[in-house]
């Protein structure tokens, strides 16, 4: 067939008919439609959509080609159009997940594999120098020592619980690399979270504070941390994030030990901690294993200190209680920026929350750390 294909764009919020056709195409390819896609590129042959791909910010999702047309190189015009559309929308660095069997098809479109969860999913980016360039910039910050520690924290906001974890880690390694999650989808902005962590650990020796990156606990590597997603890949997201850490970040800095606090409330973070034990230590990897040290959260009274508790108290403007859970700088940030009328609906009211905590059934919080 030599019929011309025409690329065009579909906005799923305003074009129900084209969106329905895309859904049917995805179903025919055994892929699920994802509501987080903001815009689709569709290739039409005649009046029929024969291929599609969607953008969820800088992540390419729902890429499919009609089964009877596979092998016709429709992926090249499709991914060309996606690249230009993403660029127009301000995203130059793109990521995608695909089945390992499809890696070569996306490689032909300028995507490069970063890590593979064997047999399940491969995580790719559209540059040959992405994760490697990032690691080259980390290597400059290597520190000597036999035990090099790492913590990745969201600190939303930074509490005495985070402080306790960092103190413990510094005492139990030769040098600690502390990363602040960079993704700006949490209640507190990245800028504020970074400032709170910086002030909160300023007095501690043998510690390097790093800005986060797209390669750790980001929308790209671990989207279920930020958004509740139901698809086959969601279960693998923790694995992708942890494999990037083990295969790239840890070797760049010589990290041998990762520290985490126990997570009694948030299911997603709790699963992440469990999966850490698996993916950072698995012996069937060419990369050295990383020891995982999980320490119990410190408690204030009966309830372990958590950032979500602080957010709940903040919603109720109970600053007296907050002051017992967070360092002075964090308290100052909370008072300064977040008092007037900011009570977002996603924060559960304190009474429900306390009840949930005591029953050990966590509220559905996806951004606690």
């Amino acid at each position, binding site marked *: 067939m030599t019929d011309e294909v025409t690329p065009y764009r579909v906005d799923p919020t305003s074009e129900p008919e084209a969106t329905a056709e895309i859904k049917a195409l995805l179903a025919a390819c055994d892929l699920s439609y994802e509501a987080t896609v903001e815009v689709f590129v569709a290739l039409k042959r005649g009046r029929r959509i024969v291929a599609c791909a969607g953008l969820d910010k800088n992540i390419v999702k729902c890429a499919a080609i009609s089964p009877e047309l596979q092998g016709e190189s429709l992926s090249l015009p499709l991914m060309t159009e996606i690249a230009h559309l993403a660029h127009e929308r301000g995203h*130059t660095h793109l990521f995608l997940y695909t089945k390992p069997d499809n890696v070569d098809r996306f490689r032909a479109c300028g995507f490069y594999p970063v890590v593979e969860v064997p047999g399940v999913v491969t995580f790719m980016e559209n540059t040959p*120098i992405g994760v490697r360039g990032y690691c080259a910039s980390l290597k400059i910050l290597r520190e000597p020592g036999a035990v090099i520690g790492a913590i990745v924290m969201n600190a939303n906001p930074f509490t005495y619980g985070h402080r306790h974890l960092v103190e413990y880690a510094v005492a139990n390694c030769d040098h600690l690399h502390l990363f602040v999650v960079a993704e700006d989808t949490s209640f507190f902005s990245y800028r504020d979270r970074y400032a709170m962590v910086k002030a909160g650990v300023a007095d501690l020796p043998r510690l390097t504070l790093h800005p986060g990156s797209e390669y750790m606990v980001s929308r790209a590597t671990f989207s279920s941390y930020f958004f509740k997603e139901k698809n086959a890949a969601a279960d693998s997201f923790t694995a992708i994030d942890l494999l990037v850490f083990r295969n790239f970040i840890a070797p760049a800095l010589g990290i041998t030990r990762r520290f985490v606090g126990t997570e009694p409330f948030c299911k997603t973070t709790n699963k992440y901690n469990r999966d850490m034990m698996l993916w950072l230590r698995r012996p069937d990897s060419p990369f050295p294993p990383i020891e995982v040290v999980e320490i119990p959260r410190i408690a204030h009274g009966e309830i372990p200190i958590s950032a979500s508790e602080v957010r709940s108290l903040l919603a109720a403007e109970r600053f007296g209680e907050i002051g017992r859970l967070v360092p002075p700088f964090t308290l100052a940030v909370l008072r300064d920026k977040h008092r007037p009328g900011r009570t977002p609906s996603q924060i559960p009211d304190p009474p429900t929350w306390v009840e949930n905590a005591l029953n050990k059934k966590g509220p559905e919080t996806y951004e606690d750390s």
Partner: protein
Amino acid sequence: MKIVREALAGTLESSDLMVRIAPRAAGLEIVLQSEVIHQFGAQIEAVARETLEKLGVDAAQVIIEDKGALDCVIRARIQTVVRRAADAWTADWSALA
């Protein structure tokens, strides 16, 4: 010419190339991926570098995804991507031929 923003030009179709350019503090960094890298890699990179130099671009990161493009296509795509990424177009077209 100074590269002040990221830009993209070209396609992934056969006999074409897709070029990305981004600002860089100093020096040219050219990263080339090509289906014919073993036969023509050095030639493609030389054409890209020469085109950038003629345009007066001395600091940029350039990522090329080549699909077997001829030299004239490589030059055209690089001129376009620089035009999209530069602060002001100062090159003389007739000198680029």
